[in-house]
């Protein structure tokens, strides 16, 4: 932004909310937005680039009635389909160090990651899963007291009071964070986004509705991810001469939980593809029906890979920007 701001032909509107993409005869003419004073404006445009993150990209296209909304009953329509998230699991074993770890010194660069089970690599058929995932431990913020105080494995009956306080002071900065698991999430017919029939935003526009739940395949991925991550924790404990505490109870089946943080990697809805009847965008992130409308972000990914998507998002965005400048501006029209 500081680089762009030096340009005379660049301006930025902070605290503005785009409500609609205005279009006529397969051409985007601009956007309407509400500024910070609550006034609505029309911003004309030759090219519109939508870069508002997966849910809002999808919602703005639905609100602007650009493209055919996906219908999970018939499988027809492309806008909103292939909604995916990441399949996250973690080690179930807790390893408590015998001395303080100075965990607050941790930074991103101290993390690790291994891809031995990524995609379909090294997948034992006994797991009965199609895709595995990445195992990693980043923990960039380190041992932040509010987030990490109060874990007292087997040391106190309640999670408050004197006994809990004593145990928590002992264990804080001694719990060795277990490995995490990020699994591929495949797209399913029944997982999609549409406009909510009931709830609206402050302007009266429908909110986006996400319909998403874990299938038997993801339940097995949770089992797989937890098991391997737990083995890593136990190996760490063995090497360090410590004890790994592992719960006896089986892993609970999970439903998709919108109330807990599960990475920000919500993807799909405005997917790229090789034909206009199965995808919203062509391989250049150009809208199949509206060639001067470009949409960036992981909403374009038809499937959700275990790796975090930022680098891939940047790559396809640079590719799209390059296509706009080098090809589209020279000859306006569909690039595929």
């Amino acid at each position, binding site marked *: 932004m500081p680089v762009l701001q030096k340009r005379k032909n660049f301006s930025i509107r902070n605290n503005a909310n785009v409500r609609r993409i205005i279009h006529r005869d397969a051409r985007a003419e601009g956007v309407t937005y509400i500024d910070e004073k609550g006034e609505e404006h029309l911003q004309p445009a030759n090219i519109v680039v939508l870069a508002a993150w997966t849910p809002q990209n999808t919602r703005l296209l639905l609100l602007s009635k650009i493209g055919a909304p996906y219908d999970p009953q018939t499988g027809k329509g492309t806008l909103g389909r292939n909604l995916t998230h990441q399949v996250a699991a973690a080690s179930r074993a807790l390893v408590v160090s015998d001395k*303080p770890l*100075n965990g*607050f*010194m941790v930074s991103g660069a101290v993390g690790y990651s291994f891809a031995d089970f990524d995609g379909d690599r090294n997948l034992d058929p006994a797991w009965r899963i199609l895709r595995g995932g990445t195992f990693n431990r980043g923990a960039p913020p380190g041992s932040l007291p*509010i987030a990490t105080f109060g874990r007292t494995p087997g040391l106190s009956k309640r999670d408050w*009071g004197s006994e809990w306080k004593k145990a928590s*002071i002992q264990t804080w900065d001694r719990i060795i964070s277990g490995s995490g698991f990020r699994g591929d999430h495949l797209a399913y017919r029944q997982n999609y986004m549409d406009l909510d029939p*009931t709830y609206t935003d402050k302007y009266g526009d429908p909110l986006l509705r996400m319909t998403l739940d874990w299938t038997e395949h993801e339940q097995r991925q949770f089992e797989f991810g937890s098991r391997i991550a737990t083995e890593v924790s136990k190996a760490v404990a063995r090497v360090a001469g410590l004890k790994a505490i592992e719960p006896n109870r089986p892993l609970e089946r999970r*439903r998709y939980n*919108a109330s807990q943080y599960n990475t920000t990697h919500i993807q799909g809805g405005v997917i790229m593809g090789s034909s206009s009847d199965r995808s919203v965008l062509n391989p250049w992130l150009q809208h199949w029906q509206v060639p001067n409308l470009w949409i960036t972000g992981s909403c374009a990914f038809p499937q959700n890979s275990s790796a975090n998507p930022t680098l891939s998002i940047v790559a396809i965005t640079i590719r799209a920007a390059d296509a706009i400048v080098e090809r589209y501006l020279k000859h306006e029209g569909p690039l595929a």
Partner: protein
Amino acid sequence: MRIRRREFISIPVYALGSQLVGRAEVPLRFFTAAEAEVIQAASARIFPSDENGPGATEAGVVIYIDRQLAGPYGRDKYRYTKGPWVESVPEHGYQGKENPRQIYRQGIEKLGNFVTLTHEQQDERLMGIENTMFFRLLRTHTIEGMFCDPMHGGNRDMVGWKLIGFPGPVMSYRDELEPFLGKPYRVKPKSLEQIVGHPVKVMEDEKD
């Protein structure tokens, strides 16, 4: 907010070496004095002051909670609160109509004559409400008030950070990382204001 005379909560003040030197009268923004005393007493049972060090009373947890409830968090500025209100599955998270202020007021009412009870009786009363939204919030906020940056009203004199050995929001540990490998790094903590060298605006002071 209704207009009322200014009310205060009394917080113990300690000098170096945990010598009680007096009490500070801190003006309240949301609670009445009577409500603040109930919250002070209840948070002190969650995080007691005992032989293992100071607790919620010394940290001023009640002041932290009072400021949060008076600010945008207390009135649910950041939660979607347009109806219709429907019962939902736990996976959708808290769907109740009550904002944190209302949850606290209702919870305080249920605690009744809490401040007149013995510690044992107080614990028993809290065990009876352990699974309520009010208690879960109070427990979370007590931990926050113990370990927040002091600019938010809790963690007074950084008692919470000193208790566990957290050095504060230090920007980098490049020079300490290796020398302290396997050794506890325990220094006098620094608050964000001490580190950046100027006052910092806090979210809970925002008017709207």
